[in-house]
């Protein structure tokens, strides 16, 4: 029998519907692949019994003719989604032993539609990071081999401290690595400043952060509530469209989640983009941009032109301010959201001489260094005397960033094309140890989209000189994910699907 993990989500769905494959076979194939890939550290928890029970139930529904849109399809779930009775820690020590009594809305939508859960995926602690190195459970390795290294070298590195192997990006590093290594058909992820799109770009996979409000955030561990949004990572644009349709939808328990019908996103795949206006923002041509990123961007423009799109130069003058403003807004909201971790209601407790020192000791032991840093920055920018100078100013700048996009869309622009990341994937242990800002710069192209609440998709569009995947980003109008899927499928088709690495692990 052929390797079932090589199927795309859409192919697997069709094979299950045609009854040429059972969900139990498909699920078992993935569980076997996961067992062989533990060195990558993509999963922090595997749930094989649950997976096989869900798969058997799916097979029964398929036989009865009551299959849902994701019936029997095995998925990985990022550790920040609450899954009832299953490890949910956002890869933090402070949520030690936390097993929620409830299910997040997004995952409950997936199970409603018949999907199968394979396990919980590694991530940067509380989604704070761009390389999956801040996880309490250790870094995730990308299945892509570093330049000039072979499988034998990489297997040895995998067994050690993983230094020199490539990061899958972050914070959804486990999701991206698992999808790229064929350890699930698709995965849930989340994006506060680029945490879906950057890892997708680093691993040759597709990731979409939908419009703020498209998916319910209920039951997702909160990082920065005005920026957080759920989305999928998958191997094709079509698979992302199938996933998002199930993940999205109204939820009265999240007041920011819109009450609007969810389109059949898959119908947008392959739709003509003739006459669509694609904006190219000049401010994204940053100093010191590698030539291969410039070329990738030019190739993307050529693909879209060839498909009949009209290319227009646009200006988004406040682009440069987005990243520093993000590093006020996100830590401020994080310091507030993470105040709940105090050793009382869930997770870790470290005793102290009084209640205050119990809080302080618990939070010192439970949060990793990056999370502590961001909470402290947040506490500082919100503290008396600094609130207006930092937080209010940053929220004003956010208005300016949003207005930049609104002006471009008012000129008739349908979508904006940019690089997804400033470079290809870097190595584990390579960045940010001396200066945290070095790591933050990874999100320079993605963070504007969160600040404005817009949808953005990262799609593989070529390879670096070293043979590593590079991605382009498309930014859409609010709630117009359909155009992103149409345009991204043109890029995917024109660039040719990236050949993901064969197992060496």
């Amino acid at each position, binding site marked *: 029998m052929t390797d079932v993990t090589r199927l795309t989500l859409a192919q697997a769905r069709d094979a299950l519907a045609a009854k040429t494959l059972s969900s139990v076979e498909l699920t078992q194939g993935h569980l076997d692949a996961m067992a062989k890939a533990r060195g990558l550290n993509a999963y922090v928890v595997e749930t094989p019994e649950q997976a096989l029970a869900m798969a058997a139930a799916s097979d029964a529904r398929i036989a009865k003719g009551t299959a849902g849109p994701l019936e029997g399809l095995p998925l990985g779930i990022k550790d920040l989604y609450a899954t009832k009775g299953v490890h949910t820690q956002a890869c933090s020590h402070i949520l030690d032993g936390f097993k929620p009594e409830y299910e997040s809305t997004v995952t409950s939508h997936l199970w409603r539609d018949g999907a199968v859960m394979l396990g919980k995926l590694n991530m940067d602690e509380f989604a704070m990071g761009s390389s999956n190195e801040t996880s309490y459970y250790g870094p995730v390795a990308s299945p892509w081999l570093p330049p000039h290294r072979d499988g034998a070298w990489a297997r040895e590195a995998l067994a050690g401290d993983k230094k020199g192997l490539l990061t899958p990006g972050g914070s959804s590093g486990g999701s991206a690595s698992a999808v790229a290594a064929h350890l699930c058909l698709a995965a849930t992820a989340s994006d506060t400043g680029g945490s879906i799109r950057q890892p997708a770009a680093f691993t040759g996979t597709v990731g979409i952060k939908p419009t703020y409000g498209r998916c319910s955030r209920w039951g997702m561990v909160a990082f920065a509530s005005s920026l957080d949004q759920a989305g999928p990572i998958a191997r094709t644009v079509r698979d992302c469209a199938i996933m998002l349709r199930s993940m999205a939808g109204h939820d*009265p328990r999240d007041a920011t989640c819109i009450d609007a019908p969810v389109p059949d996103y898959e119908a947008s795949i392959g739709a003509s983009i003739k006459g669509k206006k694609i904006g190219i923002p000049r401010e994204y041509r940053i100093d010191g941009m590698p030539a291969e990123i410039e070329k990738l961007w030019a190739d993307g423009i050529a693909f879209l032109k060839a498909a009949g799109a009209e290319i227009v130069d646009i200006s988004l003058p406040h682009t440069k301010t987005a990243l520093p403003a993000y590093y006020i807004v996100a830590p401020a909201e994080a310091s507030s959201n993470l105040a709940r971790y105090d050793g009382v209601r869930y997770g870790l407790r470290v005793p102290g001489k009084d209640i205050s020192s119990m809080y302080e000791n618990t939070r010192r032991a439970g949060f990793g260094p990056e999370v502590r840093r961001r909470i402290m920055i947040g506490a500082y920018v919100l503290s008396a005397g600094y609130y207006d100078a930092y937080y209010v100013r940053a929220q004003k*700048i956010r208005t300016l960033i949003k207005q930049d996009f609104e002006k471009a869309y008012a000129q008739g622009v349908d979508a904006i094309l940019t690089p997804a990341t400033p470079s290809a994937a870097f190595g584990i242990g390579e960045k940010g140890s001396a200066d945290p800002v070095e790591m933050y710069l990874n999100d320079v192209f993605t963070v504007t989209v969160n600040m404005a609440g817009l949808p953005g998709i990262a799609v593989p569009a070529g390879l670096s000189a070293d043979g590593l995947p590079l991605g382009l980003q498309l930014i859409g109008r609010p709630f117009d994910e359909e155009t992103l899927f149409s345009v991204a499928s043109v890029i995917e088709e024109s660039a040719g699907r990236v050949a993901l690495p064969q197992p060496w692990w």
Partner: protein
Amino acid sequence: MSVDQATVRRIAHLARIAVSDEEVPHLQQELNAILSFIEELSAVDVEGVEPMTSVAPMKMVWRKDAVTDHAGADVIVANAPVSEDGFFTVPKVVE
């Protein structure tokens, strides 16, 4: 703006995070690197600009002021590190 070591200790206390004396100089350096990065925003003209208060324009919805999904005290304290008879337990706070 940059922070001195006393401010680092004050912020850590505001954030209820214990810091040791040895950690303070390193934290000071890291926080100042981040603060100098966000400092470039002071050059942006924000005169007359409204701060963003809602990412997407939407009407706030109302719901009935009623118990919705009260699962019972046992379920609520199920994940507590220490609990007693359906209550969270904390060190004594009142003398």
